[in-house]
Every structure is written in C-alpha cells, then in structure tokens.
C-alpha cells in the first residue's frame, strides 16, 4: 500500500520547523478522530464486558445470589476437570470446526469449478446457490428440525418408504451432531463458492494456457495450477471460517439444544447453559474464557501460518 504524506506533498518538500509540527499534529488528530468512535464502542461493549467476565469468573457468581465473594481460580479448575467439558464439549467443538470447514471448502471448490464455465442460465444457478448464505441460521435450523422431526419429518417418510424403520435422527447423539454439521456446511458453502469464483476471475490466464499446451488433463490443471493459485484466498477463508465455526451457537441451539443428555453440546452452548440455564454465571464465564483462549491460540497459529505460506508462494 502506498503511503500518503499529504503534508509533505502540500509543502513541496520534507517538513521541518513549526509549521510542519502543527501539520503533523493535525494529521495525528485526524487519525485519532477517525478511530475514536469505533474504539469507544469496542472498549465499552466488548473490552469492558470481557474484563467483567474475567472478574465474574474469579468469584462465586450465581445469578440468584446477592453476594459475589472472590474465590480465585476455582471455577477454571472446575471446568478443566469437568468430564462433560473435556470428554464431550471440546471434541464436539473441534469435530464441528474441522468437519464444517473441511466440508465447506471441498464442496465450495467443487461447486465453484462446476460453475466456472459458461452455460445457459449460469447467473440464475449462481444466484440460487448464494441463497442459503442469506438465510438466518435460526430459520435454516427450523427447516432442518422439521425435515428430521422423528414423527412427521419427510426424512422418516422417505426412510420408511424405502422399507427401513423410522430413525430417531435428532435424539441419536452422533446423528444429531452430524445433522448440525451438515446444516452448517449447507449454510456456509455459498461463502466459499462466492470467494472462489471471485478469485478464479482474477487469476492470470497464462499458466492455464501453458498447461493446456503441455497436454495436462483437467484434473492435473486443477491440482497443479488452479489450487496453488487459489491458496492465499482459501487460507484466509479457512482462518475466518474456523474461528466462526468454533463459536457456533445458533444452529446447534435451535436444532438439538445440546441434547440428548448434553451429548451434542459445543463450547458456546456449554458456556451459555452454565450461565443461563444452571444460573452459574461464574462457571459460564470461566468456560467462555477457556474457549476464547483456545480459539485465540488456534487463530494466531493459523494467521501466522497463513502469512508465511502466502509470502512463500509469492
């Protein structure tokens, strides 16, 4: 990015003396004014709540109690030794993240490659593919909950018509989790399709023509030319979506609520239930901070990895 030095330009030379100092101050004041509203909102409505959460996590803080005595790290210890959190919630969350992002990338790539050629009605088909991205996760989850309703859902109508017994879709833990993952893949795939299609349009033509002249097959071209060229875009998308998938809430809450028997809980659901169902805000806050720390590490690692790889490939 070219840097702009308006003051330098206006004076026709490097700044010096008092006039330059005042111009520098003016520039600085403008810079700070630009970020002041955003920074203020961030401070009051995100940073302050995070600090309040840290405070609450160090106390005995039930929503039903008046007094909130300081108890140190007890809540963290409790979460980190909770077999529900370690044995169910964390594996579920990471499984959700990997399956949702992995499924979305693969399906998104496939659809984008299929759409990346002229055919009649292409614009319409493309538009229809974008639609799930715009639908509220809650609304989409209602659709899925209805389709997989164990008594009246169309899924069981089809299964019984095929001669099998009805399946208890959402009350079988692994099926419930799988359905939530597939719902998320369905909702997020358009995002990958969009950015991959956009990226494909900006790729240089020469490598493709060269590969074709060399007699490479379609798969070879995809594997050796398209994919490496798409790598920077894919990595940014993967980082963003991994962070979002880790904190998934809406679909899980609407489809399974973490049931049956808390077997489909992911990290956000666990923290929410601790705070607002069991009314232990302290443990909810501690759990949410542990999750925040985990995703922060995952995010930073992905971010640095991404920067390194994109720099190398340039």
């Amino acid at each position, binding site marked *: 990015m070219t840097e702009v030095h*308006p003051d330098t330009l206006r004076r026709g030379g490097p700044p010096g003396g008092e006039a330059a100092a005042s111009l520098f101050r003016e520039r600085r004041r403008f*810079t*700070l004014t*630009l*970020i002041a509203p*955003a*920074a203020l*909102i*961030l401070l009051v*409505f*995100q*940073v302050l*709540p*995070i600090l*309040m*959460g840290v405070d*609450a996590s160090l106390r005995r803080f039930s929503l039903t109690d008046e007094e909130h005595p300081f108890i140190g790290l007890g809540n963290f210890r409790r979460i980190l030794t909770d077999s529900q959190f370690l044995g169910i919630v964390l594996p579920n969350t990471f499984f959700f993240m990997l399956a949702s992002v992995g499924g979305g990338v693969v399906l998104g790539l496939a*659809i984008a*490659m*299929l759409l990346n050629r002229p*055919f009649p009605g292409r614009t319409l088909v493309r*538009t*229809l593919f974008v*639609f*799930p991205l*715009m*639908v*509220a996760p*809650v*609304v989409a989850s*209602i*659709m899925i*909950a209805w*389709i997989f309703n164990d008594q*009246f859902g*169309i899924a069981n109508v089809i299964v019984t018509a095929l001669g099998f017994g009805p399946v208890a879709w959402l009350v079988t833990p692994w099926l419930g989790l799988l359905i939530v993952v597939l719902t998320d893949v369905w909702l997020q795939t358009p995002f990958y399709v*969009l*950015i991959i299609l956009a990226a*494909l*349009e900006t790729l240089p*033509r020469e490598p493709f023509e060269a590969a*074709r002249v060399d007699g490479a*097959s*379609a798969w070879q071209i*995809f594997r050796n030319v*398209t994919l490496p060229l798409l790598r920077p875009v894919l990595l940014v*998308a993967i980082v963003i979506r991994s962070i979002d998938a880790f904190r998934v*809430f*809406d679909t899980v809450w*609407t489809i399974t*609520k973490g049931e049956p028997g808390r077997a489909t809980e992911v990290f*956000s659901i666990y*923290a*929410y239930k601790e705070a607002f169902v069991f009314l232990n805000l302290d443990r909810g*806050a501690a759990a949410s901070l542990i999750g*925040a720390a985990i*995703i*922060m590490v995952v*995010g930073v690692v992905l*971010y640095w990895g991404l920067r390194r790889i994109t720099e190398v490939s340039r």
Partner: protein
Amino acid sequence: MTVRAGGRAGAGGALAKGWRQAFVGLALAGVLGLFLFPVFWLTLTALRPESEVFYVHRGSHITLANFLKAWKSPKIQESFVNSAVLAVLATIFSLQVTVMSGYMLSRFKGATNKVWFTAIYLFRTVPYITWVMPLYLLTQSLGLYDTYLGLLLPHVAVHVCFFSWVMKGFFDGVEPELEQAAYLDGCSHWGAFLRIILPQALPGIMALGILCWLFTWNEFLFALILTGSRTPLLTVTMAQFVHELGVEWHLMSATAVMAMIPALVVTLFAQRYVVSGLRL
C-alpha cells in the same frame, strides 16, 4: 474475464465432451436441488392447511391461512417491527463508525495503525459468548437491558472489527493519487475523505450496508441474551417457537418463511453488490 480452468482433456472427442457436459449438468442440478430442498419444504409446509401439516407429502390443499394467523399474533408483529428497526439503526451506526476506522487503517500507517489493526484482529477472534454474557450484566447495571439502545450498541460492537477490516479493503482499492491531488488543491483531511474518497468507495459500502442489515436481522445469540419481554426480536421468538410450541409447525413455518423474505430480496436484487462486498 472467466478462466476456464476445466478445459478440454486432450483428444477426448465430441462424444466424451457430451458425456462430460451431461455429467456436470446432472451434478449441478443434484447439488442445487439438495441445497434448495429445505427451503422448498418449509414453504410447502407453510402453505398446507393446519389439519394436513403433519402429512405435507400427501394431499394437495394449499392455503395462505397460516400466514394470516401468524401475522395476527401481536408478539410476532412486534418482533418483526423490532427486528426491522434495530437492523436499520445498527446498519446506520455500524457503517458510520467503521467507514472512518477502515479509512484510517487503509491510509494512515504508523504505530497507531498497527495497534488498532492488531486489536481488531484479536477481538474478532473472541467468541461472542465470552462477551455477550457479561454484556447482560453491563446492560442491566446501565439500565439498558431490554431496551432499544441496549440492543443497538452491542449490535454495532459486533460489527466493528470485521467491518473495519472490510472497509479497509474498499479504501485500498481507491487510488491514493486522488487524495494527493485533493490535498494539492487545498482540501483538508476531512474534505478529501468525505468529498473525494468516500464517493469512490460507495458501491462497496452500500453492499456492506445491505449485508449489515441482513446480519442484524438474522442475528440470534445477542438477541437471545439481551432481549426480554419488552423488546422481542424475530429470531428469538422463532427459536422459542421450536421448543415451546413445538407442535404448531404450520404457524412456525409460516413465520419462518416471512422471516426469510428479506434474504430472498437481497439474493435476487442486491446479490451483485453483496458479492463485491464479500470479496476478500
């Protein structure tokens, strides 16, 4: 310019090409059908009379009665209005705040810029649940719980990090020479920003505005925790439906279909702009 990454596989001949085209068409149609089936099924359920809603696949009676009945419920009407108004306000404020912050990120490099950029990246990774739970306490102690303002400001905060980043991208796409020319003409910082640069970035900003409206309309977790009985929002009302009135699928699907209309409008009429806003 579209790059045909697929291309022709050597000396396949016309027959192989025809087969491949048929396969591609079938694959696309299949995936598309799967993608749209839930939407179709929900809409069909909403159109079926109450007595037949449990056997959507049988019978052919179609009615709009469910939509009328759902719309007549005061709580649903109130939720629609609240969600729409909140989304409009959140869009206006979010754009205003992040257009400035994004411009700063794009143009004024230096230590402050680095700190702000890092802060945005870090705070975007913080899971919503981590700060929305204490926000519940904060809005209560500020007397903002279950009010418009108590919903609006957190919903702006949700967008600050991501939108600042996207806005930076929009401004990166505007040539710096434009500002330099403006400065040489004697424009102030504000003058150059508002009169010269902002109009150039406007298409992207409009796209982001449409998305922001839709995001807020679709948002669930903040709405769930920060609303009470006085400010019901649509997504929360619907999710309560699923668990409380779990058997009234005819009303639930009618409400959900109505809640989906903005998404449909955006997809059909504004998709072109929105896609440019989503580019990375």
